[in-house]
């Protein structure tokens, strides 16, 4: 039976949403930040999608956004040639880091002390946030614009994906390239799962899983349409992917079987990420919205409440469960 689910639609952005990131689980729940071409990244409550605040300051499209683990700091990468660090509690801009070209990606180390940035200047930069005045460490090597850079192996190594169709693994202390993966086509996205050291890469219609330490291929899965982003569930039983056909796909990680697909977005899906507890996944689209989808459709979680057929009266009796985001009083 084909599943249907009503996602939580988060509106507010006025241009395409190009990146999103979840924080870790904090005593206040978990949070979500979205990067948008309208230059105004937004912070939202992760399980309800409630808007908390907008970070104002960038003068160009924001290409990358991230939160630190306890959601106290945010960092954004923008087309105004700067990366900014923000206080996620007050919304104040804490630091502006000037670059020589469009900055595409930002990420904190686990202790939030260092920030890795990269972009169209083809350089990876490491900033020490306790000494921001100091010049960042720079790692050169990529021959075209870097799309995504991530810390891996307990922040001892860096993974970067660029338009030169390579993914490179770098050692942080030696600043040297350790390994390179070359593809026939540009990689559209990259996600790193620390627990298990898995790298999720998308290119064309393929979602590929690699060992993040050795860069050995684990498996590849083909999707029905070109995929822009994919995310692996924290328990590694599912992964989700979205792309150019506007749909979200959910696959079984072990069997590679396509389990569910959902329509909802009105434009290509640019980014999809699982929440830290794996109960939902968020997608950002060209249509300017974020949508939150349940992993286990039918479960009561967050704003979703399971409504059984007898409670609905004249509803279609063929549906076993109807899920509407039934808001708790």
């Amino acid at each position: 039976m084909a599943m249907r689910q009503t996602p939580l639609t988060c509106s507010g952005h006025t241009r395409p949403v190009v990146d999103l990131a979840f924080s870790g689980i904090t005593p206040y729940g978990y949070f979500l930040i979205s990067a948008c071409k309208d230059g105004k990244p937004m912070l939202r409550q992760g399980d309800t999608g409630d808007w908390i605040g907008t970070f104002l300051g960038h003068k160009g499209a924001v290409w990358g956004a991230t939160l630190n683990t306890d959601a106290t700091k945010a960092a954004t990468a923008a087309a105004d040639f700067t990366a900014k660090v923000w206080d996620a509690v007050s919304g104040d801009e804490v630091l502006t880091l000037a670059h020589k070209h469009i900055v595409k990606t930002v990420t904190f180390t686990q202790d939030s002390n260092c920030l890795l940035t990269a972009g169209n200047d083809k350089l990876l930069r490491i900033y020490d946030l306790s000494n921001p005045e100091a010049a960042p460490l720079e790692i050169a090597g990529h021959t075209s614009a870097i799309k995504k850079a991530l810390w891996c192996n307990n922040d001892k190594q860096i993974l970067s994906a660029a338009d030169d169709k390579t993914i490179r693994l770098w050692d942080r202390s030696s600043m040297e390239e350790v390994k390179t993966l070359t593809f026939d086509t540009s990689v559209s996205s990259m996600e790193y799962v620390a627990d298990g050291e898995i790298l999720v890469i998308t290119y064309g219609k393929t979602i590929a899983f690699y060992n993040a330490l050795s860069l050995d291929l684990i498996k590849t899965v083909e999707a029905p349409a070109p995929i822009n982003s994919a995310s692996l569930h924290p328990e590694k039983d599912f992964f989700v992917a979205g792309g150019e056909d506007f749909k979200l796909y959910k696959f079984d990680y072990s069997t590679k079987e396509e389990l569910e697909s959902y329509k909802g977005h009105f434009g290509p899906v640019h980014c999809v990420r699982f929440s830290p507890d794996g109960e939902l996944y968020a997608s950002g689209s060209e249509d300017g919205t974020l949508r939150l989808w349940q992993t286990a459709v039918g479960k009561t979680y967050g704003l979703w409440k399971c409504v059984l057929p007898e409670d609905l009266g004249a509803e279609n009796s063929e549906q076993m469960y109807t899920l509407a985001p039934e808001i708790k009083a």
Partner: protein
Amino acid sequence: MSGKVCSSNSVIQAQKLVDQLQLEASMERIKQISLTAADLVRYCQDHRRSDPLLTGIAASSNPFKDKKTCVLL
């Protein structure tokens, strides 16, 4: 004389401003849209009887009812 009128006008204006601000300050504001949305839904359901969009209105008082053709006697 006109000076006195002007100043009483500005006092009236200032008083109106203060009243407006007090009204705004006393409003209950909910930060999360999910709670506000629930509140709106509950309000609409509680007031469904008096909601013409939900319960409809008598055809006689409906200004938008379909016009019948006229018959010339």
